[in-house]
């Protein structure tokens, strides 16, 4: 059994890659594939709260786990998560192909480190490649989200 965005699934091939299953089996195509060998971070999802590259994970390795993908981040009524909103407001999105993975890595960071420095943000996003933005506005976005998420 694997839980994805709150929905439990029991019918799958344990030898399949998580990235492929999400995209082709569950049609959750927000998780992107940029390299398929674990170096670009486009396929990042949260497995029990930890950012993982889903192209390097087999379903048998996540039996019983709780998985969160980009599609599970906004409220059911469509209200964006503060990280998503901050990406929009700071201009952190260009082609958008890296965006889901970036947002998920940022989510994992802020869960652990609610007040990160710019250097800590860069460190946390090191595994997520972006060819469009030079990361500047992505770092801005994560910082802005951290501010907005403070109680």
């Amino acid at each position: 059994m694997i839980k994805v965005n709150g929905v439990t699934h029991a019918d799958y091939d344990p030898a399949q890659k998580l990235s492929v299953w999400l995209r082709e089996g569950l049609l959750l195509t927000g998780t992107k594939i940029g390299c398929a060998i674990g170096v670009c971070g486009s396929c990042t999802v949260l497995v029990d709260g930890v950012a993982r590259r889903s192209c390097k994970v087999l379903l048998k390795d996540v039996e019983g786990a709780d998985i969160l993908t980009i599609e599970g981040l906004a409220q059911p009524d469509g209200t964006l998560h503060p990280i998503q909103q901050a990406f929009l407001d700071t201009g952190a999105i260009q082609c958008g192909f890296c965006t889901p993975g970036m947002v998920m890595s940022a989510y994992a960071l802020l869960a652990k480190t609610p007040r990160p420095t710019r250097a800590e943000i860069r460190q946390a996003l090191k595994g997520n490649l972006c060819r469009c933005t030079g990361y500047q506005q992505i770092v801005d976005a994560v910082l802005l989200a951290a501010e907005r998420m403070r109680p």
Partner: protein
Amino acid sequence: MNDKPAFRNDGVAKVTGRARYTDDLSLPGMLHAVPVYSELPRAKLVSIDAAEALHLPGVVAVITAQDIPGSIKFGQIIKDYPTLADEDVNSTGDVLALIVAQTRDQAIAAIPLVDINLEPRQPILNPEEAILPGAEILHPFHGSNLANYHRVRRGSVETGEAESDLIIEQEFTTSRIEHAYLEPESALAVPRPDGVMEVFGSMQHPFSTRRFVASTLGVELKDVEVKTVPMGGGFGGKDDTAALVCARAALCAWHLRRPVKITYSREWSLRESYKRHPYKINYRMGLTRDGLIRSVRVRMVADGGAYCSVTPWVTWRSTVQCCGCYEVPHVQADVYGVYTNNIFCGAMRGFGSPQVNFAIEQLVEMAAERLNLDEIEFRRRNMVRQDSTTVTGQVLDTHVVSLQQVMDVVLAEIDYSTKRRNCSMGDPNQSEWYGIGFAISYRGMSLGAEGTDFNSAILSVQPDGSVLLETGVHENGQGSESAMLLLATEQLGLPPERLRYRLPSTSNIPDGGTTVASRGTIMGGGAVVNAARILKDIIIEMVKKNSDHAVVSFANEELLDANGSRIMTWNDAIRLCYSHQIYPYAFSVFQAPQVTWDERTGQGNAYFTWVYGCQAVELKVDPKTGAVTLLNMVAAHDVGKAVNPALVKGQFYGGMAMGAGYGLMEECVCSEGKVVPANLHQYRIPRSTDLPEMTAIIVENPDPNSPSQAKGIGEPTNELMAPAIANAIFRATGKRYCEQPLRIKL
């Protein structure tokens, strides 16, 4: 951070994962195709035996050149590229067959079972060898291994050298680099019941794609409809290869009468897609004692690889800008684009300028050094100014020449003069070497004499007053749709939510040319502004006839008279239009002003307007390992007018980052013609920790040549950071490095 929140019409879709890129689409009955490559860079194709592959479960067909109903070869300038190789193999990126199967994995499993029989031939891998007299001709129909030759002849370099007190000579080399868009190529072709082949794909030029597809299928342009979906990055790299992938998907769909998708792995993308041209550049510069450049002699050789693509256009820009942004009275430039059996090269953000700037922006500093002048003063004495004449004889008098302005802004922001004194110059007593450097450029806007330059826009107001906008500009990820929408809202006095960008299709609007050369905003924006003017004239005329009021402006969803008083609301005006059978619909084009070019002398008004930029960098070098750490990067560019400031800054940052990668880390090595890096672990692009904090300074001198007053910015940002880094490394280490990427030898 940005003052004004960014506007993006596609932002919510992208940040929620709902945006559908090509590979995210699937259709009932869809099949998957994969390519089979040549292992040799040059060969005769003797035979392909697919019998065994066809026996594998799920495999439906193996398609080869024999199955192409239309032309096997196509190309934007020279028709030399086979959609599938038929007799001659020219590159290890050549696709010999396509395997079509129920699933992608099944198709991939069949690749090793296709039996390919190739007869090896001697490849030519060095462009200098390819242009020696007597070299074997790689494309006999073309008659030469020169894809093109361009020149500039201005004044007399003999005279210029005679007038000079100092002559310096230097060779520079640049490497082949990969665009590394995060989304690999993907295409989905759907044979429609009405006989039209519909194509979705990750491509930056839908109209070029349509030409490739129609040529391959042997059908008319009306029989192919290319629709665009979000694209995961292009940077100039999703033209030819992306169009070929679309043509191949269409070919399979044509034969099997089912939807066919081809999605590239990163490995195939790196192997087959075209790169930025590696250049060898030899300069000889004549200078007077007081620091004036009198002459430049330059020879450039660009390795175009196996196919022409847009090599003649790329090298043409290098030719026009062969002396950088400096006034030089005597110039002799010879620029060659050469065929070899390496992976082919084509458009990449910068388009022939990053190579030249890498060289010239170091050369001017080497000259200043020899003359005991500081590098700022030397540039000031030679740079183009208002009413200067360029090396191709163009007088810069139609717009504000802001080169000194952008340079001064950057140097002040980074505090260059103070920090310059702290540079290490390889001091053996320091444990860390510090350096600061900068570079400046000018850049001709849009295509220039490279191609027909126009774009079109349609504004169609619906009966409820909402507006559909469509342009011939393609969204590459840079936010061009958002910029077009903002321009339209500004013109019509409507809030963005009253407008929608219509899904562009090649069957609905005239070919607007490719979204390359940073021409999206200037050309598409020009068309939007022109269409808005026509639309407003329709409405003004109608209001005048029916109410005798003269509308002079449109603001806040209202039509206003000369006193700024409301005549009627926008919605009422539109209702009135429809009730009088006047349709608030406007189509317009923006045609770039005429440019001129004489191939023989390399003289002419090459571009209708120019942009100016400066970038600077601080860095440190570890004297023990040679490792470079970037500390700070600053850029200023004159963008004419910033339509969407946050997104304009995004272009600055992205361009600086890519330029830093070019300077320090990127090189797509070819061995025996084959691209060596297989995936992104071997082709490294900058990560968040490789880059410093950056500052983007927007300079705005509205351009009268552009109806929207805006100029392009995608490319200028990507042509300066590598030479700025080279100059900073010189001031850190005391040594010049003339090969890109810069590798410090201790």
